[in-house]
């Protein structure tokens, strides 16, 4: 009896016995493979339709679904990984080039990092520039005074 030879199908009697065993839950993997092989044959008697519908259906489904899923998942993974790489790249570049607050001064070539001292130097330099507008105002005032104009015109009057 060639019941479990690799590619040969089992007989109807053997199949009945195995089916009974299958529904009771005692079949081995090899026996189930033989059953699948038997039920996947064309022109089987009608009595096996129900068994075939149950076991053969699942076997067919597995084959049908496989090729359609693959092309959907792979592009998705590819795009997700590209997007993740881009986001990661932006964060990396941002963090590398992130501006750290700077606070230092060089006085006669010597570096000073004490915040209070640096701020004092900054205020000092601003006050140097700020003295300018006052000077401007004073200069403008001088030129606006009538006395200055009179003095300058007096040169031409000959007095």
């Amino acid at each position, binding site marked *: 009896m060639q019941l479990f030879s690799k590619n040969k199908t089992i007989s109807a009697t053997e199949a009945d016995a195995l089916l009974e065993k299958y529904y009771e839950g005692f079949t081995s993997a090899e026996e189930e493979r033989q059953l699948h092989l038997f039920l996947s044959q064309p022109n089987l008697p009608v009595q096996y339709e129900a068994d075939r519908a149950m076991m053969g259906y699942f076997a067919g489904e597995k084959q049908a679904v496989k090729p359609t899923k693959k092309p959907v998942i792979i592009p998705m993974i590819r795009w997700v990984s590209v997007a993740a790489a881009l986001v990661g790249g932006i964060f990396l570049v941002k963090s590398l080039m992130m501006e750290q607050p700077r606070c230092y001064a060089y006085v006669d070539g010597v570096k000073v990092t004490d915040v209070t001292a640096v701020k004092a130097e*900054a205020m000092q330099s601003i006050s140097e520039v700020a003295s300018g507008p006052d000077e*401007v105002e004073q200069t403008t005032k001088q030129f606006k005074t009538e006395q200055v104009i009179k003095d300058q015109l007096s040169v031409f009057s000959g007095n």
Partner: protein
Amino acid sequence: MRRSTKLCFLLFAMMALALPQHLAAQKDLQISKVFDIYGKKKGVTMVELSGEMLGDYNLSLFKSIVINDDPAAGDFIRKCLAKDQEGAKKVKQVISSGSLSMIILQLPRKGRLNRLILYNATSSGYKITLVYLESSDEVDDVLNLLLKKK
């Protein structure tokens, strides 16, 4: 365009976006050379403050340099200012005895930043002060805050 070329282009675009604005903003000016050349010399005081250190003043960058008794530096600074004046607005200028004694320049904006140069030289030219500022505030507000806060 090839795929690798596209990726390179994208990477450069990302780096350009990530580059801190003030790094690019100040380096296009001639006065940046003044800070580079004279900043660490004797008789010179250079200050740089940025970020949260300037919270009270709404400035994003403050750089100043005070140079004492260096006529050559004075000439160099005035040349730099003459170049940086191109395209800039003169807020104030004072010429004393034929030479520039004070100038405030409002430079073209860089992104959202207003940029200012302030220069002052004593009548003898003994002391020269140069300040560069960046702020997202209006120029008038910055000047009022700085120059009247004494």
